[in-house]
């Protein structure tokens, strides 16, 4: 660990080139950029959580953010929908572009922004309300005046939960199992039809069977949504993502490329060490 941290300053130039190589290698099939960060720096008080990160995340793909604990990947995720605003000591420098607009511009309303970006958390956190009310929550707060029940059904189908709960829509969301609760949270996130879904270690609190269901679901979601997922599980990243970004200690983005490339032939020795389990 101490070796890597002493290396960081020398590697800084490499990181940026790495990203640029990555983006230069994009095949047209990757499509438009959904979310992009430019020279992003995030501080918690005096501590730097993200160190000069630039990245372009393609739309309708699954992009995995991996790296050891405390490397800033969750912080990066929360920059995209400005959930970091809730933390008083958090300070953000640089740009995060979503839909061609810097979300940190003064005229951006973070609440309006979050209505376009769904988020799923590490621990399933359904509201202590009925399953129906959980899924309809986003519609309710946005004053949706269409057919709410149809959207609830559609979202639950989208989250592969409909068949299991269609007869108990009025029972509490807390009565479901952990894996079902997490899929309920996914249904809740997709109900208002966001453009991007952020997932912060969505399977780390679940058993392997429930986790694999969520993984299958993420695959399907990428047909319609841009999915950005933080995970500690390297196999998971390899299985489900199209692109992988590796963050290492100090909040640096060390390598960002197609998932196959990262896992088979990474440019960086440190990335290879991390992926093969030599540290982290």
């Amino acid at each position, binding site marked *: 660990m101490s070796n890597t941290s002493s290396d960081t300053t020398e590697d800084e130039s490499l990181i940026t080139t790495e990203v640029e190589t990555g983006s230069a290698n994009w095949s047209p099939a990757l499509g438009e950029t959904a979310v992009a960060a430019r020279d992003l720096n995030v501080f918690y008080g005096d501590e730097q959580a993200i160190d000069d990160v630039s990245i372009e995340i393609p739309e309708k793909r699954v992009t995995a953010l991996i790296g050891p604990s405390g490397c800033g990947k969750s912080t990066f995720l929360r920059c995209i929908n400005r959930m970091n605003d809730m933390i008083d000591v958090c300070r953000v420098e640089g740009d995060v572009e979503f839909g061609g607009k810097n979300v940190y511009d003064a005229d951006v309303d973070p609440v309006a922004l979050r209505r376009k970006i769904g988020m799923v958390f590490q621990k399933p*956190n359904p*509201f*202590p309300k009925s399953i129906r009310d959980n899924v309809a929550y986003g519609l309710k707060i946005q004053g949706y005046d269409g057919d709410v029940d149809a959207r609830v059904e559609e979202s639950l189908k989208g989250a592969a939960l409909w068949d299991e709960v269609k007869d108990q829509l009025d029972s509490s969301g807390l009565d479901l199992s952990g894996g079902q609760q997490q899929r309920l949270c996914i249904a*809740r996130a997709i109900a208002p039809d966001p453009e991007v879904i952020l997932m912060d270690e969505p399977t780390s609190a679940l058993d392997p069977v429930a986790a694999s269901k969520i993984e299958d679901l993420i695959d399907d979601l990428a047909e319609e949504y841009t999915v950005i997922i933080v995970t500690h599980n390297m196999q998971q990243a390899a299985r489900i993502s199209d692109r992988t970004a590796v963050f290492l200690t100090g909040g640096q983005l060390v390598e960002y490329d197609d998932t196959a490339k990262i896992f088979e032939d990474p440019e960086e020795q440190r990335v290879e060490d991390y992926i093969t389990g030599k540290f982290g």
Partner: protein
Amino acid sequence: MATDNANADGFGEVSRVRGILFEYLSLGASVAGLVALGVLLVYVAIDAFDLASASPGWLLTYFLTLVIPFLAFCLYSADDSAVTRRVLVVLAGGLVAVAVIFTAIEAFVVTIPRLSWQLTYLFVVVAPATAYLAYVGSHGRVGAVGFGLLGRLVGGTAIGLAVGTLFLVFDELVWFLAYTLGVLPAAALYAYGRRRDAGRAVTAAIPVGLVGLVAAVFLRGVVRTYPSDLIIYLWTLAVPIAAVGALVVDARGSRTAAVAAGGVPLALAIAGGFLAGNVGLPGPTTLIVIALTGVPTAIYVHRVVDVGDGTVGLGLPLLLAAGVIVGALVVEAWGVPAPDPWLDVSYVTEAPSRNATEAGLYPAIVGSVIIIALVAVLSFVLGVGTSVFLEEYMPETGVLGSLTRLLQINIANLAAIPSVVYGLLGLGLFANLLGFGYGTAVTASLTLSLLILPITIISAQEAIRSVPDDLRRGSDAMGATRWQTTKNVVLPEALPGILTGTILALGRAIGETAPLIMIGAATTVFSAPSSLFSRFSAMPMQIYAWAGFPQAEFRYGVVAAGVITLLIILIGMNGTAILLRNRAERGS
């Protein structure tokens, strides 16, 4: 070698003396406190109901007609032979034990004042056994149905009486206009919007209601002729309650049942309201009580019959009523000498008097109920508002964070300030400066609200803080504003805790005397307050005044009856709040 063999004799011992000592000391302290309070309440009850002069025959009669059938009902519901055996052993063994021990103490140690061994048996053995059996019985389906029905009858009556009392002070004509112009159209719009999925009708409901309320206040000064009180209560309370009842039954069962569930109580209420005057009861209050009791009862009976399980339990109120009637007949027929309780109907419906047998608590009861209702509303709204602001809106860091902490410390300190000081504040601020008058109901309510506000705020803050942050973040990430998160996620989840704190605080407010004395409340008034600005007395004030009377009848009988009334109202109030809280807990 020695260490190798050490374990052969076991692992040694660790001393637990201090832990065990602590355990028994704590147990002893709490038991001593409960026993002392229990003995006091027993004596108060004996005085209030004049049980000391109850003959053994009278006690035996009601024991046989009322207590035994009730116990049998509970045992039937529990349907557990082990419990039945245990209870029979306790009742029989307790009878012998209490008789022997009581006689022995009387003979050899000291005479016990105003208690006979029969009374001691009732309080020490029968009362706990009944409570235990009621608890066990309520877990059976039959018992649950019986207590459910009984609860609706008692609760409906209590709420009906409370509403009737509030209308002594509040202007029913304004309510009539407000209901007709504001509440009814708003409710109709809302229901229409919900049914037809017309979002605009739902959104329009609140503005329409507000306009109606404003118009009502304005028209009150203009309109001269009004329907009679009875018609107003019928139109604004009985009919909507019956309609809601019919809708609830309709959603679950047949149209006919719905019409019956709404119509029968409504017809009874109308009949009761118009006939009440003939037997000297106030018509409007009778109407409200019958409507508020009848409709929930009808809904409940319909549901129980619909489910078809434990319908026998519906007989419990009849069983108890029959017990009372048979007991009264036996007492009458055989000329069993009956006690003359201080706490009777005239005590709670008459004004105070210099003559102990004619003394009543009615004006003080009305005063207390009105004050408590206002305090409940004021402290709940202000307390929840302040705690939401402090917990959800004020930042935790920076200059404002320091300010929050300062406020926090001060609120905690305010909770510790003696109530006399609040009385002084009320006197200076509400009575003098704002001119609400000395000893008026509104001054008292505002003062008591201030007094319990810190307790309400602190407990509401605790409840809000205990809502997991995960839920807030989840709502925020959906793009909810802070207000939407607070309203939809935080408050529903915190409501049970908030209500618990408010219940405790209200319990304190209802018993306060010192601040009422400071703001110049009368110890005795002879008519119930007729407006918020009329002079009033509260139950603790009146009880305190009576306790200073020279006649022994006041100091024992009348005061005891007052204490029991105060406790019953307190328990009724808390019971309602606890039911609400449990419902909120189940709802979430």
